[in-house]
C-alpha cells in the first residue's frame, strides 16, 4: 500500500506523463481507490504500481477506469426523486423546451431514472438530456444501458418509493442475467465526454443534476465546478447536488435559494 506522500508523487507523474490531472481530487478518496486497485491487481507498493502504470498502457487505461468511482443505482435516494417531481417538474413544465445536464453520469443509472420520471410526468417529449462523464468507459456503458439483474429488486423498491406509476420491468428488455433500458429512453439523451476540471459551459440548461460527484473533488475544484454550473443555468434554473454535499463553502452560495434543504435542490436567483 502507499502513503499520502507517495500518492502526491504518483499523481505528479501521471500528470506529467499522461496529462491526466487528478491533483484537485480528494486525496483521501484517491488513496482509497488506488489501494483498491492495488489489491485487485496484487501490487504491493508504490514502486510496483508506478512501474506497471508507466510500462503497461493496458494497465494504465484500466487504472483510469477504476479510480473514478462509478458506483450508482436506479432511483438512489427515492425521497430526492419524489421531491424533484413535486417541486421542480411543475416549473419545467412551463418551458417550451427543456435542457437538462446530468453531470458525472457514471453508467447512466441516474440519467435513465430521471428520464423515466420525465416520461411519466409527460415532460419527456420536449426534453433533451446532456449526460456527461470524464470517463469514456462510463460513457460507453451508459450508451449501452445494460445492467446486472442482481439489484433490480432494490431498484423497484426505490422506484415505487419515489412515486413510480408503472412497473419498472416494463422499461427494460431482460434476459435471466441482464436488463437493457428500452431504446426509447436513449433517444433524447446525448452522452458525451466532459471534464468538469478542464472544460467549460456547453449549453444553457434549466436543470443540472450532479449528485455524489463533487465529493471526489477537493474544495477548490468543487468550487470551480459549482461556478461552471452557475454559468450554465438561466435565472430560476435548478441545481441538485448529493444529499450530504453542500453549497455552503462555495462562492456561488449567495446566488441560490434552497428549494429543498434536505434533498439539496437549489434554484438560481441572481
Amino acid at each position, binding site marked *: 500500500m502507499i502513503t499520502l506522500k507517495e500518492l502526491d508523487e504518483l499523481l505528479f507523474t501521471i500528470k506529467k506523463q499522461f496529462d491526466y490531472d487528478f491533483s484537485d481530487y480528494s486525496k*483521501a478518496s484517491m488513496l482509497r481507490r488506488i489501494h483498491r486497485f492495488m489489491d485487485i491487481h496484487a501490487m504491493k507498493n508504490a514502486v510496483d504500481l508506478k512501474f506497471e502504470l508507466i510500462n503497461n498502457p493496458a494497465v494504465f487505461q484500466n487504472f483510469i477506469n477504476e479510480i473514478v468511482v462509478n458506483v450508482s443505482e436506479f432511483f438512489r435516494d427515492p425521497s430526492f426523486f419524489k421531491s424533484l417531481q413535486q417541486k421542480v417538474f411543475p416549473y419545467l413544465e412551463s418551458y417550451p423546451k427543456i435542457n437538462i445536464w446530468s453531470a458525472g453520469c457514471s453508467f447512466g443509472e441516474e440519467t435513465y431514472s430521471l428520464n423515466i420520471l420525465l416520461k411519466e410526468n409527460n415532460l419527456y417529449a420536449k426534453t433533451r438530456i446532456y449526460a456527461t462523464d470524464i470517463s469514456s468507459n462510463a460513457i460507453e456503458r451508459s450508451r449501452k444501458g445494460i445492467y446486472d439483474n442482481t439489484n433490480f429488486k432494490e431498484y423497484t423498491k426505490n422506484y415505487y418509493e419515489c412515486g413510480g406509476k408503472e412497473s419498472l420491468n416494463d422499461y427494460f428488455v431482460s434476459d435471466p442475467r441482464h436488463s437493457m433500458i428500452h431504446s426509447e429512453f436513449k433517444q433524447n439523451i446525448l452522452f458525451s465526454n466532459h471534464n468538469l476540471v478542464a472544460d467549460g459551459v456547453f449549453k444553457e440548461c434549466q436543470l443540472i443534476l450532479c449528485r455524489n460527484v463533487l465529493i471526489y473533488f*477537493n474544495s477548490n475544484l468543487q468550487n470551480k465546478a459549482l461556478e461552471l454550473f452557475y454559468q450554465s443555468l438561466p435565472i430560476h434554473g435548478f441545481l441538485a447536488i448529493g444529499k450530504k454535499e453542500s453549497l455552503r463553502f462555495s462562492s456561488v452560495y449567495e446566488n441560490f435559494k434552497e428549494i429543498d434543504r434536505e434533498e439539496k435542490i437549489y434554484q438560481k436567483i441572481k
Partner: protein
Amino acid sequence: MKSQAIIIGGSAGAFNTILSILGQLDKRINIPIVIVLHRLKNTTSSFETILQRNTHYTVKEIEDKEQMRNGMLYTAPADYHVLLEEDYTFSLDVSELVNFSRPSIDVTFESFSAVLKEKCCGILLSGSNHDGAKGLKIMAENKGNTIIQDCNEAEFANMPNAAKTLYDQHKELNTTNIINILNNECY
C-alpha cells in the same frame, strides 16, 4: 502520544455501549469523536437525536468537506463511507460496499490512520460481521491506540473477535475500562 481524534466503530449490539461511553466521558476530553455505526439507508433514524440527549458534545451528521472540529461528535451518514483529508476535512464516498457495509468501519479506520498515524484512537465494539478488523490492524501498525470491546461482554462478539484474530495486540477492554482508558489518556 496524544490522540487527535477518537473513532468508534460498531454494528449490532453497539448502540447502548456507545451511549454508556459517551455518558461517562470526562468533559475535558475535547478532541473530535467520530462514530461509524452500520445503519439502514433510506430511513429516517432518531440516532442523532438519541445521541444528543446523552452527551454534552454537539452531535452532527458529517457533510462532505466539512472541517473536523474539537468538541464535536460526528456520525457517519447512512450509505456513505467517511474519509479524512490531510487538512482535517471530511470527505464522503459512495463507492462499493465494503464487508457488505456503507459506511464501512474499515474504510474510516484506514483513512484516519493514513492522516493521523499514531495520533488517533480506534475503538471497535459489538457487531455480527468482521468489518473494522482490517482497518484497526492498519491503525495499530501505524502506532495508533487501538481498543476492542471485551469479547465476553459484547452482545455480538464476531466483530471484536475478528479484529483479535487478525492482530492480537489490541487492548481488549470492557465498557468500564474503555471509559477509564479514554478518560486517562485522551485529554
